[in-house]
């Protein structure tokens, strides 16, 4: 009977309430948790993004894994093991309650604090954690100790602080020891950013991030002084998104420097940078940047909700974060843009988009984006509009060639010879005469070789990489033709395809097209132009169905929205009167209809 029931259950249609991509909340549990938790004033003020989230979803209980059945018991600090050696799938559990420091408060006893710090950091085994005893030279003298991580702090700043405390603090100490921390912060420490915290969680977060914590005898609070000063790259030129004209700065690995690079370009008090923590173990800082008076509040709330809901133990790069927050991770096309150029981020933020900068990652994420924006570089705006438009059309051609050319070639030579002029047909046939492989194998051989050269060129260090790439391609192509393994026309074809692929400015999109190309090769070889048409229809409908944070991926063409002056053709900048309609910005107007006031007024249009 149970078998029958199971069979019936298997063949009965059940609505998939847990499908990602169509709903904004990842699982029903998340939705339930979100409803249970206290709504923030911001989330109350703005509607939930997207249509289906508000439609109400069926309660769906996720099965509990056996490993978690016992519940997430917080580990005691007496175990001696800090932050557990659990499996990755327990990370969310740990994030909630197993971090031993989460519930600990700073004690008034210096010895107790020292013992807790020692246990939390696994001292003395952990050798890069420095605990140094100090005596503050007030009268009477106050005992204390400082904690910091060697290598993360700026020693000159720290020396200055220690000097201030030990040598120059010749003031009478306050009679109430509980107020010592506030006294030290206000009177004795000259640091720029000094705060007082009473929870060990906050103390550890700060110390792990390069700050120095000061514990004082008799005071149940710790003083945190900003002493960040680790080794890092300086601001360098972009390596992936190079351009001829425009700013030549790129992001680095330091979050604060990255946010500052954006703020340097957007000198506006409405530029907001919020910080969120992601990753139960590495607790990486993620900066959410947007214009308070431009970005759609629902979009900002949605970005923060998605980032805040991530339960994982380790995020090291924005690429990992991107995969966690995008709507359609199974589609090849990227729906979030990563850029290393602050000017692109600044321009996007001014348009009403949201940027996410991850500490340690030199790529900042921009959302929402459309596919057309992924074919822009920003350089078109810096050069004359005619040049920009020309480059855009060239790039549009490259876009199609990058994934269609080999497949179409196969379709034509295998199924539609009539399309090829007789002379060319004879030339192709003559060249192919000695080639022993069928055309499909020939194309696959060359394409795979090209991909190998490309990958090898990337992995080989330094200048050798590009040299190997060029030499490898030349020698391999020439040798393959001489050995009658491939025909010369195919070498040209693969080279043009490769060049077109390199002309796609956004790396992830170019990568997606590289993979699509192989599908078209198979389709062209098996079904000819009809196969190519089938592939195009499938690719187009899957791409048209994509959304980037609620914005249709192919807007403003599919669906049709107000196109603006900067989609494929790049019209002169004085025509860029409105921000993109699909972003739903709070202020759609970028500039007045007549932005060049000098055309109509003698005073230069100062009042315009």
């Amino acid at each position, binding site marked *: 009977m149970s078998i029958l029931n199971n069979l019936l259950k298997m063949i009965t249609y059940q609505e998939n309430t847990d499908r990602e991509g169509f709903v904004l909340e990842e699982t029903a549990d998340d939705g339930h948790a979100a409803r249970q938790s206290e709504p923030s004033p911001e989330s109350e003020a703005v509607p939930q993004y997207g249509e289906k989230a508000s439609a109400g979803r069926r309660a769906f209980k996720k099965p509990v894994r056996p490993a978690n059945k016992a519940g997430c018991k917080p580990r005691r600090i007496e175990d001696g093991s800090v932050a557990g050696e659990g499996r990755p799938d327990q990370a969310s559990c740990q994030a909630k309650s197993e971090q031993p420091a989460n519930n600990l408060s700073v004690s008034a006893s210096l010895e107790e604090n020292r013992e807790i710090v020692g246990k939390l950091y696994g001292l003395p085994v952990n050798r890069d954690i420095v605990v140094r005893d100090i005596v503050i030279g007030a009268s009477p003298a106050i005992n204390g100790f400082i904690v910091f991580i060697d290598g993360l702090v700026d020693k000159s700043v720290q020396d200055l602080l220690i000097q201030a405390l030990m040598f120059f603090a010749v003031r009478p100490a306050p009679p109430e020891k509980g107020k010592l921390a506030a006294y030290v912060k206000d009177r004795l420490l000259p640091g720029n950013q000094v705060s007082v915290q009473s929870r060990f969680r906050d103390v550890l977060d700060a110390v792990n991030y390069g700050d120095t914590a000061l514990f004082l005898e008799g005071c149940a609070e710790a003083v945190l002084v900003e002493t960040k000063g680790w080794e890092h790259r300086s601001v360098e030129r972009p390596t992936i998104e190079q351009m001829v004209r425009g700013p030549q700065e790129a992001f680095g690995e330091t979050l604060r420097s990255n946010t500052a690079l954006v703020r340097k370009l957007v000198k506006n008090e409405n530029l907001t940078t919020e910080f969120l923590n992601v990753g139960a173990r590495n607790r990486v800082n993620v900066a959410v940047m947007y214009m308070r008076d431009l970005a759609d509040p629902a979009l900002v709330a949605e970005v923060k909700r998605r980032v805040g809901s991530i339960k994982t133990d380790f995020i090291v790069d924005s690429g990992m974060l991107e995969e966690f927050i995008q709507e359609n991770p199974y589609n090849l096309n990227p729906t979030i843009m990563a850029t290393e150029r602050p000017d692109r981020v600044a321009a996007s933020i001014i348009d009403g988009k949201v940027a996410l900068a991850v500490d340690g990652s030199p790529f900042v994420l921009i959302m929402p984006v459309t596919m057309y924006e992924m074919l822009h570089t920003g350089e078109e705006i810096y050069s004359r509009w005619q040049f920009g438009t020309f480059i855009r059309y060239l790039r549009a051609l490259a876009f199609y060639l990058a994934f269609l050319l080999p497949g179409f070639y196969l379709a034509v030579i295998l199924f539609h010879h009539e399309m090829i002029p007789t002379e060319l047909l004879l030339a192709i046939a003559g060249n192919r005469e000695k080639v022993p492989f069928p055309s499909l194998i020939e194309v696959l051989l060359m394409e795979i070789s090209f991909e190998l050269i490309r990958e090898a060129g990337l992995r080989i260090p330094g200048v050798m990489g590009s040299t190997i790439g060029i030499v490898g391609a030349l020698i391999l192509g020439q040798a393959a033709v001489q050995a009658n393994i491939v025909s010369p026309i195919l070498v040209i074809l693969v080279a043009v395809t490769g060049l077109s692929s390199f002309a796609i400015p956004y790396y992830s999109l170019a990568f997606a097209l590289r993979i699509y190309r192989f599908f078209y090769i198979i389709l062209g070889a098996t079904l000819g132009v009809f196969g190519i048409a*089938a592939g195009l229809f499938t690719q187009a*409908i899957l791409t*048209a169905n994509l959304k980037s944070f609620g914005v249709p991926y192919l807007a403003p063409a599919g669906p049709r929205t107000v196109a603006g002056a900067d989609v494929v053709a790049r019209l002169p900048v004085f025509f860029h009167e409105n921000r993109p309609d699909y972003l739903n910005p709070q202020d759609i107007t970028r500039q007045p209809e007549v932005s060049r006031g000098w055309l109509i007024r003698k005073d230069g249009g100062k009042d315009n």
Partner: protein
Amino acid sequence: MLAMSNMAKDFMPYPRQLLEIGGPAAWMTPLGGLVVALAGIYLMSLVLKKSPGNTIIEATEQAFGPLVGTALNILIIVSVLEMTGALFMREYSDAMLTTTLRGAPISVVGAVFLAMSVLGAYLGIEAVARVSRLFYLYVLGGILILILSLTPYWNVHNFLPIFGEGLPKVIFQGAYKTSTITEIILAAVIIQAMGGSVKNFTKIGCYSMLIGFGILILILATVVLTYTWQVGEEFTLPLLRLARTIYLGRFFQRLEAIYILFWSIVGAIKISLCLYGAAASLARSLKLPDYRPLLWPLGLAMYILCLLPPDMSDAIRLEDFLRTLLLIPNYFLPLFILAAYWFKGGLQRAGS
């Protein structure tokens, strides 16, 4: 999207039938059909106004009661859309076999169309509409280039005698043949995708008819101008023949493969729409919350139906008959519904 759907038949043997009817005046045959189609949209809008916020499915049920209404919906709307989808699947598969994949079994080509249509219908009307929006420029541009490329072969005398075998035959028989479209009933099924507004329905319906019929008139005129109607009615696929005729120097000739690319996409859009319409109508009729589980069985049924005719000539003959069935959901059903409302209103007035 509806205009693209309307254009799908232009790439098939359909224009040949109109050449047979109209002769040199073949280009006039769609004029009568256009008037009838516009009248059909007006009729359908009257029905939809009686049942605001609902589709034709609910309107039928309201007019005839739940039992008869559901039966009529399944018999008239679902089955006709299903058969039309199967018909197009067969015609497009045959067209692919005769033009490009001569050695391939029809089941394979049909299966590819089935896969495309199930995917399109699964992703929904919004996705299909976006794809239509993406490709319509290429399709219209392609047709325009085709027409312009053939201007060197045009002979205006081919239009004579101007009314062919007589205006009544051209107009009335042409109206009968060309008014058998799917777009009126499809628009009435997907009206909620147009915001549920009857005004939008009328506007979109009229525009799509004007574009669709306009393109058909242009194609027929080009065939007559280029080849004369006597030669034109010998072509199985007149538009493909026109594409083959293009000769822009030694390098640009025989460009029909490029056109096949876009025609296949138009075919996939048409079949997706028919499948979506059939599944959505059936789901609404049976009060199912989601149409998607019906896609696979309906798609499979469409595929099987498409394989039933033994050869292409039988398929064309069958098409001739089945196409007339489209008159029922497009024109007769709205008339019946209006009559039922009128009858009910009369009874109520008599009762009060």
